[in-house]
């Protein structure tokens, strides 16, 4: 029955990821922990690999609808590779909790601007 759960998780994550243009790790990681019984670290890593497949499918599907702008993607996507390497290295050394509140405030401010 774990297979069926994984299929449902995949369909759900693919739907929301494509609808909003995000990887969907926010929902994927907890679902993999709760429904598939993976530990946090394996869930994060596994979600990343699944997101890779889902994002390729998402780009291909948006491209069929003529919506993909590769130049714009490169402007954020290329620096982000460097950023993620820095972030992973920093992960163990930063004051996680205080940074989390800062990140949450940032998301809330941008979110409020888009909703209004």
């Amino acid at each position, binding site marked *: 029955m774990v297979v069926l759960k994984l299929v449902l998780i995949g369909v759900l994550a693919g739907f929301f990821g494509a609808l909003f243009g995000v990887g969907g*790790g926010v929902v994927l990681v907890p679902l993999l922990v709760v429904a598939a019984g993976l530990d946090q670290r394996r869930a994060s890593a596994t979600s990343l690999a699944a997101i890779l497949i889902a994002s390729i499918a998402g780009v291909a599907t948006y491209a069929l609808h003529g919506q993909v702008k590769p130049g714009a993607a490169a*402007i954020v996507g290329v620096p982000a590779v460097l950023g993620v390497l820095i972030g992973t290295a920093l992960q163990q050394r930063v004051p996680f909790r205080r940074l989390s509140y800062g990140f949450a405030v940032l998301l*809330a401010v941008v979110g409020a601007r888009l909703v209004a």
Partner: protein
Amino acid sequence: MTVALVALIGLLAGVLAGVFGVGGGILFVPALALGLGLTQLHAEAASLLAILPTAVVGSWRQQRYGNIDLRAALIVGIAAIGGVQGGVILAVSLPESLLRRLFGALLLLTAVHVGWRARHGS
């Protein structure tokens, strides 16, 4: 100048993704929409493409550490392809302003999630 600023946000999004494991995409989309003036739909499509290099590098490193449950990743990933079709069809058919508002709501929910996780420590 704006392009340099948006690239800097891309770098920051990568750092935050590395630290929190919460994707770059959630910051790529507003950076592209508000910073470069893309439509919400174009920003979302470009964001999915921008996620790829990071996901490739991240998956490669995690694979070397032996952290990926390959069977689970394949089942979830392949099933996701079906969900993706529905998500894209809905995104292209929704009015631009509604799609943007829904994305804003997603950001607010993620803010609550990140704050809650910090408070309850995990």
